[in-house]
């Protein structure tokens, strides 16, 4: 099986673009990634497109209508917030399988404002606020409080994660926000679902990201100077857990995917230089330090207290600003994370550069659940 390389990758600056369409946003990132690769749409053998909001509306084909209808196969996929990573992985799989040498993966989303989730009206009467809450801030608050119950993790420790990620985003011109948020501001912001305050919830934004993936043969032909090697790709669903029905499990599927990814790459968490993980809420990021093996179980609070996950720390996490500050356009997030890690591995991350980064890990969770992890390596 051929190794797979990312030869071009980019994302648009995340923001709110209500006047544009989903395909139009996706087309912009696709062209940017093609330019980054020095290739054209004619060079692409297939398109893997991730989008959630218009999952039944052929977004991939509509992107090609904006950038070139070559007749290539298009796969449209949706996998909750793991959608972008799933599209990327499908592209990777096609090269591993020997079907293609050059393919394009695009993730795109246009978001409304407001709360995500909910227990749904269904039949009868609304259940929200009657049988607890199905809103995403509450669901992830409950997952965070499970960590508190086990290890005594505090509201302040959760809040520090937002301080860190908002600080990181001040160095990322493609992030939605570039604003420092001191601890008191995070803790005193409007409480949405304790312990997640407004500044501890990811930002609903529009965005797109795209990557050109190639086989080893093609990478050598095109030149390896800025190539990034995909050392591992893992995708899991949630194995059975006793509280599944009322408490979507983001832990077990992450641990399983992490184990598989580390094994495939032949590396351990101690070898990873930077991580972009799924901080849809501050409470979620805390869980994944342990789930990804960045520290022992029970030590996540210490990781944030001691700055080990901040830029300059032992293993910087979400130096892009993360979903909390860069923004979270659901279907684009999984490829935007890959863009961020590739940018560091290429040494092109400017002010927020993780010095000497050789190996990076991206992680996303789609609630319901799906976990996608990729391990990426600097080639030159």
């Amino acid at each position, binding site marked *: 099986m051929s190794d797979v390389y990312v030869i071009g990758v980019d994302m648009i600056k995340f923001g709110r673009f209500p006047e544009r369409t989903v395909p139009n946003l996706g087309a912009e990132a696709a062209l940017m990634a093609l330019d980054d690769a020095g290739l054209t749409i004619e060079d692409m053998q297939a398109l893997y497109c991730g989008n959630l909001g218009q999952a039944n509306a052929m977004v991939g084909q509509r992107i090609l209508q904006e950038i070139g209808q070559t007749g290539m196969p298009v796969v449209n996929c949706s996998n909750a917030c793991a959608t972008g990573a799933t599209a990327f992985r499908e592209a990777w799989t096609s090269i591993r399988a020997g079907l293609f040498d050059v393919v394009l993966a695009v993730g795109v989303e246009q978001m409304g404002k407001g*709360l995500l989730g*909910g227990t749904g009206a269904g039949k*009868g*009467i*609304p*259940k*929200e*606020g*009657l*049988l*607890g*809450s199905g*809103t995403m*801030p*509450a*669901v992830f*608050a*409950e*997952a965070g*409080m*499970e960590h*508190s*119950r086990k290890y005594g993790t505090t*509201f302040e420790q959760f809040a520090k994660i937002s301080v860190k990620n908002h600080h990181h985003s001040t160095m990322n011109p493609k992030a939605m926000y570039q604003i420092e948020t001191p601890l008191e501001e995070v803790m005193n912001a*409007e*409480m*949405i*679902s*304790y*312990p*997640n305050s407004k500044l501890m919830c990811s930002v609903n934004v529009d965005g797109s990201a795209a990557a050109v993936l190639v086989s080893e043969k093609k990478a050598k032909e095109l030149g390896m100077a800025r190539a990034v090697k995909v050392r591992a790709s893992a995708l899991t669903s949630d194995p*059975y857990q*006793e*509280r*599944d*029905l*009322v*408490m979507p499990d983001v832990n077990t599927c992450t641990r399983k995917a992490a184990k598989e990814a580390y094994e495939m790459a032949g590396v351990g968490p101690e070898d990873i230089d930077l991580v972009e993980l799924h901080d849809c809420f501050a409470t979620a990021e805390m869980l994944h330090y342990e789930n990804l093996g960045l520290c022992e179980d029970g030590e996540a609070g210490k990781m944030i207290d001691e700055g080990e996950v901040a830029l300059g720390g032992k293993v910087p996490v979400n130096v892009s600003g993360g979903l909390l500050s860069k923004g979270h356009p659901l279907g684009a997030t999984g490829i935007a994370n890959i863009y961020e890690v590739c940018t560091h591995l290429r040494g092109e991350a400017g002010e927020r550069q993780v010095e000497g980064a050789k190996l990076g890990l991206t992680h996303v969770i789609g609630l319901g659940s799906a976990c996608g992890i990729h391990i990426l390596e600097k080639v030159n």
Partner: protein
Amino acid sequence: MALPVVEYLKIPDEGEPYLEGHKCEDCASIFIGSRNVCPKCFSRDKMEKIQLGNKGKLYSYSIVFRSFPGIEVPYISAIVDLDEGGTIKGNLIDCEPDPEKIKFDMPVEVVFDDALGRKDAEGNSYISYFFKPI
């Protein structure tokens, strides 16, 4: 005549309402809602209906301050492990929405009452379940 808020809340002709679970005869896992195959051990057609217990302990929670339009806040969204098996989610009532007052593993009772006055399009009222500190 009030209707049950969810399919697994049963209102018998005589006696008190209760919650119904399904238990796998092979691995003893308990599920809310009916199913034919056990997602844990994959056994088929081994599910038996059981009446879930009315006592449990608070496993996790969130205090919800912002919800969808029209939903009264704050309230406590609670996850409760039932003493006799099964985990359910609902509102924790008769408890201040203050993290200082909410303790993990605090014992609670499942109580049944009108669904906060909510009615469906036909004007039917509903019976729901709630958790109450013991």
